[in-house]
């Protein structure tokens, strides 16, 4: 089997994978990083969003081998010890979740969105979350959380 090497949440990782192994399966099954979720498995819902070299991507629509040599960040890589990332804190403060299943993907998408658009309008946040679906339809508080998180990230 081919070997893939990458950095995941700051740690060097080397794993043997089949060519057809998806990045999300490598993360969840081989590395035990189950914070990244599989919702639809058809690139629609965004529960599996992680960052590859800082850019949000759907890890259910990326082969593990495509991530060769990249820096991957998952929801587990955001907090600094006990201290949550400002966007995670904002989701907690604004109750930006209901069942919580979509939340890891929402947070990862939101951070990338804010890095590219540091001071987004509400419309930009709603448009920016087009690829993330909340089955509880809890969008109102998610959008409020992203706006608050953006403010906190600006410092």
């Amino acid at each position: 089997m081919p070997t893939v090497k990458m950095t995941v949440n700051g740690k060097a990782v080397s794993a043997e994978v089949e060519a057809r192994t998806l990045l999300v399966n490598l993360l969840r099954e081989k590395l035990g990083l189950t914070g990244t979720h599989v919702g639809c498995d058809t690139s629609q819902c965004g529960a599996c969003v992680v960052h590859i070299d800082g850019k949000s991507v759907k890890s259910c629509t990326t082969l593990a081998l495509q991530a060769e040599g990249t820096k991957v960040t998952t929801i587990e890589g955001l907090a600094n010890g006990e201290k949550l990332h400002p966007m995670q804190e904002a989701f907690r403060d604004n109750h930006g979740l209901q069942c919580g299943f979509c939340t890891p993907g929402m947070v990862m998408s939101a951070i990338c969105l804010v890095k590219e658009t540091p001071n987004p309008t509400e419309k930009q946040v709603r448009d920016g979350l087009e690829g993330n679906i909340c089955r509880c339809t809890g969008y109102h508080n998610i959008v409020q959380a992203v706006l608050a998180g953006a403010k906190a990230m600006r410092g």
Partner: protein
Amino acid sequence: MHNFEYHRAGSLADAASALKKAGEDGKLMAGGQTLIPTLKLRLAQPSAVIDLSGIKELASIKAGAGEVTIGAGATHAAVAASKDVQGKIKALADLAAHIGDRQVRHRGTIGGSLANNDPAADYPAAVLALGATIVTNQRKIAADEFFKGLFETALKPGEIITAVSFPAPEKAAYMKFANPASRFALVGVFVAKTKGGVRVAVTGAGESGVFRSAALEKALSGNFSAKAIEGVAMPAKGLNSDIHASAEYRAHLIGVMAKRAVAAAG
């Protein structure tokens, strides 16, 4: 998903030789945003997948005098954010900014979209309306010769798109009516006032994929205004009818989107 041999191409020549070696069951992959879902559904079962995403020379975007050349490996996000594209052909940057969603735009590429020629894809409308030239590792293909039907193109076995060259239009805009669920174009219309005349391309609607509308081009040639389109009959013949929209509804939408595009082009 069935398993396959994976080859990460280091250069265009490497990709071409790996593709030749793989034979007719070899498949090229750029961003994988269409191919991976297709593999999951087992609609394709390639013996080998040749990954083009590591070929740096394919990702460049260069502006020349009156044209922009976009490398086949440029992602939708890169095209949308490119100052060169925004400056020369704003309509093209706007189109790229609304393909799929942000995550898809971070990986999906212009070359992959064109080689796939999905009948509801956005890029084919821009390529056809702007009269772009598709550059491959073997030749140059004019847009009018490239699109051959549903998921069919003029590309031959072993041929790899390397870049797309777009002449800058005088005016242009793209408007799409997105399917509310999938966000694919139910109907998308790209209008362009070019040196060679007015060109109008329609995606999402045709039974055979993207097409030019002679009736709209004629109406807009004399008078490039939304008013000129009023009264132009849009036949439903040759348009798709499915659970999302009837051919008649799509025909109606072509006129509406064309008017909005002309108004947006200014």
